[in-house]
């Protein structure tokens, strides 16, 4: 069942913009969540500077999580990270997220090479 749910993945990337404070992506679920389901965003991260972090928050400012790669060798891609999404942050099956890369006391939007993809997935239970 979980595998089935996992296939119900929204890859829809309706809007992607880069702003001064981050890169905004809007993701859409294929259907409404049921009472027993939750959601997570999976962020695939490419090569970023060691010590760089990627903050994932809603465009209304609710912090969802911070990707802080660890255990990498220099020059390695950072891998994929799931971050829980509170169901109440999703409205009409949509959620808009801001991704911000911070490093060395500066913040900017990650490039397409630094954040390769962002997916919204249905998970089996609410967070």
């Amino acid at each position: 069942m979980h595998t089935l749910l996992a296939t119900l993945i929204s890859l829809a990337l309706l809007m992607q913009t880069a702003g001064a404070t981050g890169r905004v992506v809007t993701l859409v679920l294929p259907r409404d969540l049921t009472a027993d389901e939750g959601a997570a965003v999976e962020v695939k991260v490419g090569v970023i500077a060691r010590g760089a972090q990627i903050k994932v928050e809603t465009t209304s400012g609710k912090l969802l999580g911070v990707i802080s790669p660890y255990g990498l060798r220099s020059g390695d891609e950072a891998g994929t990270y799931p971050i829980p999404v509170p169901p109440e942050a999703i409205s009409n099956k949509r959620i808009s997220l801001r991704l911000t890369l911070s490093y060395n006391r500066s913040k900017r939007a990650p490039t397409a090479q630094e954040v390769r993809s962002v997916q919204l997935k249905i998970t089996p239970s609410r967070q």
Partner: protein
Amino acid sequence: MPKLKSPVTRRSFLKTTLAAAAGAASLPIATHAFRRPTAKYIRYNVMSEGGQKAVKSYNFAIEQMLKFPPTHPQNWFRNAFIHLMDCPHGNWWFYVWHRGFLGYFEETIRNLSGDSTFAMPYWDWTTLPEIPAVMFDGVLTPTAEPYAPFTKSLEVFTSFIQPPLMTYWNTLSPAQLNQLNIRGYTDFNKMWNDVTGNGDPSNQAFAITPKARYLTRENPKLDADTYKNCEPSTILAGLSPTDFYNESVSLSFTSKKTESHNSAPARGAFSMLEGLPHNIVHNYIGGVTNIDPGPYGNMTNNLSPVDPVFFLHHSNMDRLWDVWTRQQQSRGLPILPPQPDLDALSKEPFLFYVNGDGKFVGDSTAGEYLSMERFDYEYEPGFPNTLQQTSSTRQKRGQVQVRGTVSGNKATLNVPSASIKEHLAAPAAAFLVAEVTVPRPSPSSPTREFHVLVGAPSDVTEVDPKSPYYAGTIAFFGNMSHAHGANAEATFAVPLPKSPQAFKGLAAATASVNIRIVPAYGRRKTPAVLKAATVRAV
């Protein structure tokens, strides 16, 4: 960021239930499925009486390890090189490899300390989002003076450790060298480049003594971003997968299946618990975001076991694996993957461990460490405190979620009395958590810490953690000028207090709960503003 200083008391331990055993009977390999009803050793919360006793033994044993010559496999720094040469990250051997590493290390500390009851305490950063104060005592911080003869400069460290490490390298078996090859360490110098950084300060695993740990006794706290990855909702989300391994990482308790435990994390996908709290606690302690671009403290890299807090951090990660395992057992769900994955997982060779007698373990496999029986220990409960709690939580999360009406610095919420009673009756950790949203302080504001009060009479404006109304302390760190301007608010999760005095009117179906914030530490002239408050079951 909540600051939860209420003392952790010694608690009774959850015993494996008949239901758990019944569930385990359907598991792939029964020898891994059954948890012993009692264990010989108890890993305590570091803040408990048992934990405080254990860290004294830990401190004593580290003193001995620092005195061992670098040719000794139990020399403090040689022990850290086991991790640098062999640790898996971003793959499904993360938990099991660290269980073996921690288990043998625990035996070492037991032997060297002479404390026959020693077990590694854990640091539950969900309920204590700061480095435990005791970890700044004695040699429990790598910035302590006894480390200086070895780490006062890279040159000193190199002359001390490199020759015996090269000698050791030349004794390695073809199987060990093959694993190092997979890791990218095709020769000794490739490995050593990760110690020096090879010109890249951010990649330098070595840290000089005074900068070996970024957080200090005066500034021990995790910041708000770090705590977000450790807060109850994140931990519960990380415990929610029902598969030990699933190709979709959101549905997988463990990180990605790879060809070898030495495969680069670049090919991996991190489970929530490894990728969020595990990673960021490592990095923040070492100074990531605050001393970019490095060199960082030890915890940010694969020589992280040089910092003694490493083992308390990983004891907590191992505890969460145990929580997940018992949760699965209680539901009759498998705790390990089905065949043929189970074979692939179990047969992976772990070849670099050193046991409690200072001997190389030699050939061992991951399957030997899938059960806690191997080292005969169990955990004093931490967050989430009991199996029953996580089970009931799953049914009630989403059902209990109350948003308050806010005026000034006070929110009023109508919370079901039954939920409050359940919260008060829960044996240890909180069942109800308040999410409070406050504006970020301006760059010039002298007040960046606020106490969260629940049910406090209006004339109560100052509390300490012993107050029945005290829920926690939230704090901002760093340069506020870097905060987002348009969304200059932050939300913190704070467990509600466990004292009945904080709640009135429980005879009715719903009780009116008031939540206030006040400036901490007597800064009463600074106005506090509460933007929103929600109470939810976790």
